[in-house]
């Protein structure tokens, strides 16, 4: 009896060895690990900001005004005497939230759409993917600007609009994964066992298509964050009193001649985050041996 249990355990270990191997490959990639570590730090800081920020978000010091980095204000202060580090921490909460939530929206829509199209196939597939083709050709950047103008500039809409743009590639990747998985024996076995299509997709297809999805998700987050920063820079994204890195960069650019630190530090925060995400994404692609997901 005991031997049986140990055999089962070994089997389970072998079953997960793909992920285990990938993990080992990833941990050997210094750039990816570094990126992951920086990203994790930024996320933890963003989550804890209300408790660990050196100053309160609203705190102003009009007597001080704009001052360069000092012991009291590590990254300096802006023209209202607000602490730049605090601003960047609160801005990071918004920027990261947009990045993760909008990507999450894209992930849910794209994976569902692609899985259904790929699994059902035939005419349904043709119609669903033709729709994706048409949407692909739409100039979405302009459409998002339009949406922000027409419906006012609120954060929720920003999440939805960006998510609605980014799901298309996800759907294509998922569909091609599902198509190749559908012909495999274990899926045929599941079909012959009489499982419902939804259960088969959820339990057998999606877990096996995770690799490319994870890689693409990691690479979507930076492009979403860029999009948010782009809109905020133009004044069409996040609105005061809220702030984001894009908005801070936009303010910084206005006064950079006199107070360059107001531009440089938010810019660094954004660039470092994008760097980390891209390196992590590239590392994951190599580790999971995903090809052709980068388009």
């Amino acid at each position, binding site marked *: 009896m005991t031997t049986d249990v140990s055999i089962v355990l070994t089997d389970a270990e072998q079953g997960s060895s793909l992920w285990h191997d990938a993990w080992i490959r990833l941990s050997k990639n210094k750039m990816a690990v570094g990126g992951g570590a920086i990203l994790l730090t930024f996320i933890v800081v963003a989550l804890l900001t209300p408790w660990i920020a050196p100053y309160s978000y609203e705190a102003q010091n009009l007597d001080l005004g704009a001052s360069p980095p000092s012991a009291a204000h590590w990254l300096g202060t802006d023209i209202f005497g607000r602490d730049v580090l605090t601003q960047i921490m609160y801005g990071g909460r918004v920027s990261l939230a947009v990045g993760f939530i909008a990507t999450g929206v894209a992930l849910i829509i794209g994976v569902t759409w692609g899985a259904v199209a790929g699994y059902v196939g035939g005419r349904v597939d043709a119609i669903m993917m033709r729709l994706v083709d048409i949407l692909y050709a739409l100039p979405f950047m302009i459409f998002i600007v339009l949406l922000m103008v*027409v419906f006012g500039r609120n954060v929720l809409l920003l999440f939805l609009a960006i998510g609605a743009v980014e799901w298309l590639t996800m759907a294509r990747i998922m569909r091609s994964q599902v198509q190749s998985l559908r012909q495999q024996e274990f899926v045929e076995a599941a079909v012959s066992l009489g499982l419902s299509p939804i259960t088969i997709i959820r339990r057998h297809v999606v877990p096996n298509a995770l690799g490319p999805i994870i890689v693409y998700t990691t690479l979507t987050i930076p492009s979403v964050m860029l999009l948010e*920063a782009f809109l905020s820079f133009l004044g069409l994204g996040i609105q005061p009193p809220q702030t984001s890195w894009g908005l801070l960069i936009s303010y910084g650019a206005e006064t950079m001649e006199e107070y360059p630190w107001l531009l440089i530090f938010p810019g660094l925060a954004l660039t470092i985050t994008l760097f980390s995400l891209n390196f992590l994404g590239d590392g994951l692609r190599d580790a999971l041996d995903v090809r052709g997901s980068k388009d």
Partner: protein
Amino acid sequence: MLRFMLIRILQAIPVIFVVITATFFLVRSAPGGPFDQEKVVIPEVKKALEAQYKLDLPLHEQYFAYLGDLAQGDLGPSFKYPGRSVNEILFSGLPVTAELGFYALLIALCIGVTAGVFASLRPNTAQDYIPMSLAMIGICMPSFLLGPLLVLVFGIYLDWLPITGWGDIPGDKILPSITLGSAYAAYIARLSRAGMLEILSQDYIRTARAKGLPEWQVVTRHALRGGLIPVIAFLGPAFAGLLAGSFVVETIFQIPGLGRFYVQAAFNRDYTMILGTTVFLSTLIVFFNLVSDITAAWLNPRLRAQFKGGS
């Protein structure tokens, strides 16, 4: 090939139609009419204005009237600048943006292809790592950060180059073009490196080497054509990105181009201007996607065969 082109052109038509329809109804559903201002407009004047802009008609009639005008290439009058048509404003900005985009793309292609091909010839050496690290920086450094930084360094601290305008002072086109082009140089460098690496490992390259061609001829005469297909295919999406990038770059450098007009129209809620610009830019983007797709297919015999085969 002809069939492939025909299919792609037929696919582009519904896209443009969807753009026009969606934009029209989005803009019309925006809260607040264009003449609901703080100052009270006399009802008769408002009525006359609405009649002039056909706002008194039912929505579907407005839509068909708009389609009719569009078919004749008329984008209608501007709400914000009475007496000027959207066409006039667009065509005053178009040459500027086209020139800016052209320079940016030229910079992106020259630097990107050179760096990418250079890196691909000695993979995993310093000759590969240095340009590819620079490319990564280019991708992670958005134009709205790079632009102000370039202005700060080259315009203010070093005082080498002018920081605003377009064509007013010699040299004022340099910084905007670099700002807009750098991210695309980075993408193109990565794409051409990947494309070249794949081609350089093919049998026909080995054949070319075996028959004793010098390496530079192998690269220029045999590898480049196939290796740069991904770059050509990227030019369509890049064009869309360049237009969107021109929103930012023209705002930073105060250039009177299409992008700046669009952003201003967005702030002014100049609905006909937004509608007209969206339709115009979208059509341009769809058109360039089409051209880049067809060119890529024409260069790639495998893709051509795929379309002859079916679907």
